[in-house]
Structure formats: C-alpha cells, structure tokens
C-alpha cells in the first residue's frame, strides 16, 4: 500500500524549491550549511 510520503522529511507543500535544501536520499533532514549561492562576476 505504499507509505505516507509526508513522513520522508520533505515539505511537499513548500512554495520554495525542495532541491536547494535536499541533503541526501538517505536523510530526512534538510541540508545544513550554506545552500547554493552564485556571486555575479560584477560583484568582484
């Protein structure tokens, strides 16, 4: 009968993209530390 997918640690109703804080397929915790960020060239 499958499983309750809301118990896998992902906020499926989030308005934000999940991949930014997706830590690992083996963890139901969000990624810690700096998420992905991009510094435009002209900031240098």
């Amino acid at each position, binding site marked *: 009968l499958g499983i309750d997918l809301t118990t896998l640690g992902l906020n499926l109703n989030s308005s934000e993209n999940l991949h930014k804080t997706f830590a*690992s397929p083996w963890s139901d*915790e969000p990624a810690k*530390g700096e998420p992905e960020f991009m510094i435009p060239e002209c*900031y*240098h």
Partner: protein
Amino acid sequence: DLGAIGDNIGGNANSGGVHDLVYNTQMLEAAFYKLPQPKDSERAKSYTPRHPAATPPSYPQVQAPIVNNPAFWERLGLDTLGTDTLFFAFYYQPNTYQQYLAAKELKKQSWRYHRKYYTWFQRHEEPKIATDDFEKGTYVYFDFHLANDDPNQGWCQRIKADFKFEYSFLE
C-alpha cells in the same frame, strides 16, 4: 493471482547488468555500512581573509556561525544602522555567502546595484523619467568619500540629482 507472475529473486542475471542478483545484494549490503556522511559534502568553511592580520587570541579567531544565517542579515536590513553593515559585508567580504546575503538584503531594501560604478543606488523619489531602457531622477548612493585632509573621509550615503540609471547596468 490476477497480476504478473511472482518474482524470482534468485541467482538470475540482471537485465543488462554485469553481475548477478546475489552479488549485487552483497555489494549493496557492504555499501550500506559505508554511506556518505553529511560532513562528506561539507567543505571547510574557513574564510581566509585576503590580508590576514595577527590578532590577540582573545579575539574571535573564526567567524561566528550566525553570519551564515539569512535571518541575521534580514534583521540588519530592518534597522538603518544595519544597512552600513550590509554594505561592509558586501564590499569587504567578496565572494562569500555573507556578500551574497548582504546583496540579497540590500535588494530587498530597494537598493539597486550599478554594474559600471560598482555602487548601490536607491531612489530618493519617484524618477522623473522612466523608459524601457533607463530611469532618471534623484538617488541616494553609498559611496566611499576619499579626501585625505577631510576628517570625515570614509563610507557615506550621498544624494545624486538628475542621475540616469541605464538598465543595461542594473545587476
């Protein structure tokens, strides 16, 4: 009994694989005890200052973790004193997450980065002219006032009237 015939988890070769099921199961089991750990993905966060200076050991020797927390920067954006701190982080911590967060917060406070002048501008009033390519009006901008004899040399916010902000320079 109305579905596909049952499984045959046995030693049959996998479709297209080079190993059989038993071997794959053994390898999976071994790998299960050597999963990547969260720290395997994290890099040393040591921020190496461009010109490291020796400071007394009583001074913090590493950045406080809070500088990685976006909420900390959002708080700064809400209080005018904090705005200067945002500019400090932007200009003195290049290529770091702090610079990224400071820029994000400045943008939220309606500052706009001018790519040609490397300067942040904020409308002082509604622009007099606005087209698809530029807007023109009076702006506040954050600048470094360089005047050796002037005691209040340093970062300051100045007003610039009649400035044309071409959108091709908007980052």
